[in-house]
Every structure is written in structure tokens, then in C-alpha cells.
């Protein structure tokens, strides 16, 4: 994951348009997910799962992403944290591969 802010906006808005069927015209950074865009907490989980897949990262244990309120918060989150998220994902992948290469315990 090494994206410009425009690429992040495109990916996030793409998910909101395709998965949540929102109107692209409504997707301004100051819009809140719940009040303005009409989503709920289950939609937010679905949205994050889609972005995890898209960016090849894991957000499940991330506390900061749970605090986002506006669309701009999400853009900021990914712009600020992409290096850390990518490093985490790569470390997790390496750990999984190492575990797999271990001989099974008796």
C-alpha cells in the first residue's frame, strides 16, 4: 500500500458507491457516515472489510479506525497510517509463513 491521497479517495469512494450504493455527488470529506450518509455500524464493518481486501491490510484490531466519523477522517487515517498498516500486514504474512514451515508438534 503506497497510495497518494487522490488514490485513497478514489478507493474509499469507489467502495461507498459500489458496495453502499451511495451517490458520488454526496461524497464530500465533511460528510458523516451515520447522520449524512445514512450508514450504520454494520455497514462500517462491511466497508472496512472491503478496504482491507483492497489495500491488503488488516484493520480488525485497529482502534483508531473505529473512531472515524467523517469521510475525511477515513482519507486521513489511510494517508497517515499506510506505511504502518503495510508493515503490519507484511509482518503478519511472514509470521504465518514461518508458522507453516515449522514441523508439526508431537
Amino acid at each position: 500500500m503506497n497510495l497518494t491521497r487522490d488514490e485513497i479517495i478514489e478507493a474509499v469512494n469507489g467502495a461507498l458507491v459500489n458496495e453502499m450504493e451511495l451517490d458520488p455527488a454526496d461524497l464530500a470529506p465533511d460528510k458523516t457516515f451515520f447522520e449524512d450518509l445514512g450508514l450504520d455500524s454494520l455497514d462500517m464493518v462491511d466497508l472496512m472489510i472491503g478496504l482491507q481486501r483492497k489495500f491488503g491490510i488488516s484493520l480488525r484490531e485497529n482502534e483508531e479506525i473505529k473512531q472515524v466519523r467523517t469521510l475525511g477522517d477515513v482519507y486521513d487515517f489511510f494517508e497517515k497510517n499506510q506505511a504502518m498498516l503495510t508493515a503490519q500486514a507484511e509482518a503478519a504474512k511472514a509470521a504465518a509463513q514461518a508458522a507453516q514451515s515449522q514441523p508439526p508438534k508431537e
Partner: protein
Amino acid sequence: MNGLKRVVITGSGIYSALGFTPGELFDNLAAGRSAIVRGGEEEDFLPTAPASRDPERFRVLPRTLRRAMAPSACFTAMAGLAAMRDSGLSQDELLALNAGCAVGSTMGSVSTLREGYSLVLSGQSDRLSPMHFFKCASHTTAFNLARTLGLNGAIYSPCSACASGLQSMGLGAALISAGQETVMFCGGADETGSEVSGSFALMYAHAPAEGDLAESSRPFSAHRKGLVCGEGAAVFCLEEYDHAVRRGAKIYGEIVGYSSNSGGNGLSQSDAPAIARCMADTCTSAGIAPADIDYISAHATSTLQGDAAEAAAIREVFGSGVPVSSLKGHLGHTLGASGPLEMAAVFEMARHGILIPTRNLDEIDPACAGIDHVTELREKRIRIFFKNSFAFGGINASLICKLNV
């Protein structure tokens, strides 16, 4: 029904491979059309009778509802909306009545179960959507119907495989008859997939993909080689008679008899004596003599043993004097949807005064003989009809509906 109240049907809606309204379904059945095609990988390339899963069709359902729905629930919601419109009952009236629903399916949603297993077994369970459970829960068709119609009453979901739909009708009728409910939306729904069709194939009960597939489902035929799984949904509005009359509702018919039983040891084999007892009990519950039935809409799925057992039971209870046909040669076996969906077709038959024959019944199996098989379009006035549904696990269910009430 031996209850306090009379139960009538005041709305009907379907979603099927041969039509999205009962009238369209009847036209296709009367024209002898078959819904059966070659299945894809998901059906193990077996013959199958798919209903449209085109997402554009389901866009009439708001996303906030649709996000929790797999095809089985979408089929149900579409049929349920049509049934509600047909009933003439508004959402406000339904709320005031605390209207409920009873809808069942074989296993929720086989397509969603498969998606879930694929993710979990490949170590990607963190990619499971929070909607996964809602799409494949065993009662997904029922609660999604309630959400779609805004029902605030009781939600039931009898999950008894291929008898789910008819048992839901029976349950709804019993609750209204007992005075516990005034309006219930009842029906069945299902979607195909190799988890179901493959199970039948393993038991040598599924028709193979050979020859003209439109001829692969052949109920009661000497040449039948097994069933073909189909999909779809049907929902009826069941209503307490006096309430329906007071509001001037159109009445399709009255559910006057219903019974369900088992042979006590059933797994996959049909039990003719238990079926006969179920059918006889249904006549008793309706206070109607078998000879007064005008038509039997058979369960007959095109399996070797099941069709013969049902024919033997019909022979024992009704003799050879009541016309019988199965619609599974046209529609395949729509599993949990089959009972209500085929009932919707019978109401159309009654409206037209025409019985639809069993498709592909060119040569009657001697084991299925001795009953009045309808083998071509036949003019007939239907005043009272009989519907059968049976299911794995030894479950039998029968219902009698009286028209022109």
C-alpha cells in the same frame, strides 16, 4: 381446521423460474414450458431450474434491506411484496394488526453458506461480512420478509426441507384458526446449489444431465431417473375470515384442512402408509370426504420411490376418481418453495377451469398407476383442492383449500 376461526387467503405473490406473477406462471405451465437447464459448477453440472438472480430485479428492495438478503430471501421479499399489494392491506393496517409471518426454506441460503465456508477454510475468516449470518441463518427468509413488509408480529420459520413452505402455511392457518393471529404472511422459498442437488445425486435420487434436459424431471413416469432441483418463492396472505369480509377483501379460498405427520422412522425413504394417514387426517380435519376433492396437486418429485409411495397413498385414500398432477416436470423441485408455489398455480388453474398435466408423463409407471393422472390440459371446475408436500426426515404435510367461499 377445527379451530375457533375460519382462515382465508387474501393475497398471493410468487417469484419463480416460470414467471413473477401467478398469471405468468400459469401461462407458461399451460404452454408446457420447462424451466430446466444444465447447471453450472455450483450445481455439479446437474440439470437445474434456476430463477433469475439478476441483481437489477432486486433493486426495488432498499439496500438497507437487501444487504442482509441472499437470493432465497430476495425471492421471498419479492413474493411477499406482491402478496401484500395483492391483499390490499396497507403497512399501517398490518402494524395495527400486529401481523406476523411464517416462511421456511431448506437451509437458509446454500450460496451464502458456501461463501462463508470458502473464506473460513482458506484462513480468511476476517473477510466474512457481518451480513453473512443474516443471509444464511435458517430463518433468513422469514425475518427478511418481516423487515420488508414492516411486520411487527410473530416471526416463525419452520425449516423442514421440502415441506417448509406447506408447513408454514399450516402453522399460519393454525394460529389464525386458534384466534391467536389475524393476518399472517406464509410461504416458502429456496435456492439451488450442489449442497442440495449433490445430496440427492449421492443417493441416486437426482436426474442425470443427459438427453433433452427439459425431459429430465418426469414425475410418475416409467422413465423417471430422479428429481431436478429448482428455486423460487411463494408467499400468501392468510387472514381471519370475518376480518377479510369486513374489509371487503378479495378471497382466493379458505384453508379448511391441514395435517402433518411422520412415519416415525423416516430418513430419505417415503412411507406410503404414513402419507395415506396424513392425507386421510387432512380430509377429516376439513370435514370433507376424499371423493369431494376436485384435484390433487401432488408432491411427486420424480424420484423412483417417492412418486410410487405417494401414488400408493393417493390410491388408498382417494381411489382413482380424483385428478392428480405434479408441476415438478415444469418447475423442477423448488424444495421449500414447492408447496406454496404450486398452490399459487392451482389457484390460477381454478380461475381458468383448466388442470395442468404432469409434464413428461408419457408412460405411467405401473407402480404409480391406479390413480387419475392428468396427462394433458383438462377442463375441470376446481371447488376444493388438495396439496401435498413431503420432506427428508419422514415429514409429510397436506392441506385442503376450498374456493368460492
